[in-house]
């Protein structure tokens, strides 16, 4: 039968057209069923917050919630800034992103360090926010789950965590107020 007819014949074209039509239709119907699990507009509307820094004294730290995650905001002391500045980049284990302290804070606001408070190892929340906490060997944060030590710039220095603590996108909207997200 195939030998007697041209190739492709009319039926082949019909079958291919129908299959293409079904594939495109099926795929476009699939998307709503996948996308429904993404955060909706309501969740996205809550995706940025403003934080007033005025009550946070030098040496103090606060924890705020942003997108369901804790954010560490620390008003660093002169000593802590100096310790972070003097660390040579070669000593930092995070080779993907060996960030200088200046790259992790806003110019002119070097005392304010804003971090996502989630250990880059397996997602625990490191200690070091309250005065009684152990702050690890480098005076920053210490993750009790698997023993990762972060310095006063939130960079990984010792332990299994692969990356520095993330710095969320933020900006100063006034002298003492930041907008995160």
């Amino acid at each position, binding site marked *: 039968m195939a030998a*007697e*007819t041209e190739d492709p014949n*009319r*039926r082949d074209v019909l079958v291919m057209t129908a299959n293409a039509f079904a594939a495109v239709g099926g795929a476009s119907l699939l998307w*709503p*069923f996948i996308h*429904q699990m993404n955060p*909706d*507009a*309501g969740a996205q509307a809550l995706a940025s917050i403003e934080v007033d820094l005025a009550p946070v004294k030098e040496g103090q730290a606060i924890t705020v919630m942003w997108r369901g995650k804790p954010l560490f905001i620390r008003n660093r002391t002169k000593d802590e800034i100096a310790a972070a500045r003097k660390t040579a980049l070669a000593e930092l284990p995070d080779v993907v992103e060996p960030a200088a302290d200046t790259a992790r804070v806003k110019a002119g606001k070097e005392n304010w360090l804003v971090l996502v408070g989630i250990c880059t190892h397996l997602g625990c929340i490191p200690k070091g926010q309250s005065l009684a906490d152990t702050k690890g060997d480098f005076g920053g944060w210490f993750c009790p789950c698997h023993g990762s030590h972060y310095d006063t710039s939130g960079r990984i220095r010792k332990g299994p965590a692969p990356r520095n603590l993330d710095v969320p996108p933020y900006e100063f909207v006034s002298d003492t107020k930041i907008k995160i997200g």
Partner: protein
Amino acid sequence: MSNHVSSYKPLSPMAKWWDDRLPIARLIHDSFVEFPTPRNLNYLWTFGGILSFCLVAQIVTGLVLAMHYQPSGADAFNSVERIRRDVNFGWMIRNFHAVGASMFFVAVYIHIFRGLYYGSYKAPREILWILGVLIFLAMMATAFMGYALPWGQMSFWGVTVITNLFSSLDGVIPGVGTAIVTWLWGGFSVSGATLNRFFSLHYLLPFVIMGLVILHVWALHVAGQNNPTGLDLKHKSDSVPMAPYAVMKDAVGLFAFLIVFAWFVFFLPDYLGHADNYIEANPLVTPPHIVPEWYFLPFYAILRAIPSKLGGVLAMFGAIAVLFFVPWLDTSRVRSTKYRPIYRWFFWLFVISCLALGYLGAKPADGIYVFWARVFTFYYFAHFLIVMPIVGLIETPKQLPRSITEDVLGPDKHTGGGMGIPAGAAAAPEKR
């Protein structure tokens, strides 16, 4: 049929390896590819496939809705509104599910009337038919509980009215009905506790239906499909392989059905529901006019037609229970109503009665409406209990064709036998 020799040939060593261990490809080949389907099936036979699609669609969309729905008296109503407004594509998926329930019933009613018209319940398909009635019952329970979940006024008062049906048992043994109703509610009125258990069962029952459908299809494949002549398959020329012939026909029917489905989903999503269900459930205010979803209206009309509480409930459940006995109530030896000149009139009278009961179920229960509801309720039962047994005995059926092939091709072709090659326009259409 199930006892024919399998023609499956594994094409690769891998397929052979699987076939020796778990012959699932062989099962699919024998059941849905090579399976002999009568060559004269009309579009009414596509509703089995359409119903399978409906069940899967309801399960998939329901799974999604359950990800966003809060089954609690305090949050249910708002969570459904959130699905409609905020959840990505929630408006669409929710409409698929709500309209899908109605479409499921449209398809199942056509499927049931097709079975009644062509005598698909007769030997050897009695179990097939009974499984179908069980699926219908499970569908009704699922739909009823699903309608409770948005927790609007119609949800709440629908649940109140239908669960209160069981209190009629107080008329048999005092106290039993009330005890059952309290047990169903998990309280002394319909409450959040009732909603939670309805959600649990609404999630369970579709899988029960799926199990029943598998048995239904199994029974179908043992007996083989009925067809418009009601004759058995006698020659090879009476049947065609399911794929591609019946599969393609099913696909055409399904797409036509989906056009109607999509029209409702995208343009009339609330047409088949009630405005009162967009008012949150309020145990202190009953809506002035409670009506169930359209697909329950005939049974609701039967309930209200009987002037006794227990009697009405018995009649309503009896209207479904009588379907179980149809294979034995119909005494005719001819399956298809096509060849039954007297019964044919009664069949259409029965269809009209069902439609009339549906209309009357939506009307207030007073005056002339009650009178006509009683007339049509009488005929509903008379059709099964009087017409079916008697007409089958007194009727002289028309001359049946000698075979399906003769019915399709004309009197001189009935032997078919080895000449299963279609002639003329049907031959090798790809060459034209």
